[in-house]
């Protein structure tokens, strides 16, 4: 396997007094796609937020591209090449679609620009029709497309999608899965959270299941499917 681009070691994260992550270890290698699964409220988003620095873990450390991120600002971590699409989208309501995309534009650390404005619009033709609309005026699914497109505009090495396809129509959701496949081939690593565990496990190399802030399973999609009792116990399937 390739060298890890993002790594968490023994993370303990809190919100105030409530202890959410209990010593989570997690790695993501270059070009790898990992699915993060678990029921509602198990700490998936908290783990992702800890990785990108929005939540500061009280113990443990996060290493991104070989650098410890403790003490780094959120934007500095992002600049290492990590792009995070939070659940609930975070669209800039007061900016137009065009501005939402362009404001984020950035070449990657090597100066490459694989994802351009045009390419994002190619992937989401719906957005091309709405360029002048304000973020607030988009339908829910259009907003989701926009955040993903905006994340891609930063030409990340690591793409983290929380609730990746929430609100997307099946056709578009499938397009997202396809794109993730495509970008994985270009060497971008992804972490996916999505309720559709089957679709996720189809395209990921590895899956991690969280239960109450602890990792209870780690393995390929095949391995996951081979253990229906795991699925039913931890995902309620």
């Amino acid at each position, binding site marked *: 396997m390739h060298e890890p681009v993002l790594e968490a070691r023994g993370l303990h994260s809190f*919100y105030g007094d*409530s202890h959410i992550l209990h010593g989570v270890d997690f790695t993501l290698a270059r070009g790898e796609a990992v699915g993060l699964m*678990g*029921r*509602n*409220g*198990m700490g998936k*988003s908290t783990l992702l937020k800890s990785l990108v620095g929005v939540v500061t873990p009280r113990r443990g450390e996060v290493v991104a591209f070989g650098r410890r991120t403790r003490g780094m600002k959120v934007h500095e971590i992002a600049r290492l090449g990590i792009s995070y699409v939070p*659940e*609930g*989208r975070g669209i800039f309501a007061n900016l137009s679609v065009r501005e939402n995309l362009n404001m984020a534009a950035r070449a990657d650390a090597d100066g490459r620009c694989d994802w351009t404005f045009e390419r994002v619009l190619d992937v989401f033709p*719906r957005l091309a029709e*709405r360029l002048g609309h304000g973020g607030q*005026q*988009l*339908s*829910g*699914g*259009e907003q*989701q*497309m926009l955040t993903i497109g905006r994340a891609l505009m930063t030409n990340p090495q690591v793409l983290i999608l*929380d*609730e990746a396809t*929430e*609100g*997307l*129509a*099946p*056709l*578009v*959701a*499938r397009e997202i899965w396809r794109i993730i496949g495509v970008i994985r081939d270009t060497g971008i690593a992804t972490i996916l959270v999505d*309720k559709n*565990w089957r679709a996720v496990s189809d395209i990921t190399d590895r899956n991690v299941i969280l239960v109450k802030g602890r990792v209870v399973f780690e393995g390929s999609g095949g391995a996951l499917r081979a253990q229906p009792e795991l699925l039913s116990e931890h*995902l*309620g*399937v």
Partner: protein
Amino acid sequence: MTNEVLLRTVKLRRTFGGLAANDRVSIELKRGEVHALLGPNGAGKSTLINLLSGDIPATSGEVFYCGRDITKLTPHERSLIGIGRSYQKTNIFPGFTVRENVRLAAQSREPRAARIFSDAAAFGPYCEVVDEALHLVRLAGVADRKASELSHGQQRQLELGIVLATKPRVLLLDEPLAGMGHEESLKMIELLRGLVASHAILLVEHDMDAVFAIADVLTVMVNGVVLITGTPQEIRASREVREAYLGAEEQQDA
């Protein structure tokens, strides 16, 4: 009696600038039916719900509730006569406890304007409704947490809990299952099945498993107009729908 039409629209139309987000939309919601509304992103589903709930006024067309023209009613008036809705983008009272979120919804049914000096939280009838709603959406365990401290999925559950506590007869649900985990989704489907006997439900949802599991009638919208209304079988069989919306979904389910 079960198939009584509760909510009916006649040629509803709503434009944003030059864009017709809804055009000539005529649908009927009947008691005892789950009516699923499908369509690609931006088709106008949420807009339709907004028109039905009064959140935005219609450009033209009418809405009837139990035969009464309610096109001009404000959102709160519609809520009070029994039309409840949930939001696609979570729309709760983030600073309040989960219980207070739901309690407020229950309070709206009994404003008790006259009793200015009584303690709202201790009022029995509210409490019952609240407990029931919290139980239904499986949030009883976190009732005293602040809503903003819930996880995304839990907030989605709360979103639904608030609607249920207003005891509506017509439920307009905008992607209620989005963000909920697999198990929670299944429970919600069960819950909706239980409710449908006495309610009319309009369900906007992109989760096809769920939709085909509970919908009695489906309407597919594209670009603001109704493409087709029919039974699950008819919809599945429609080539147009497959092209516009489902894509190769069939194969997976098959």
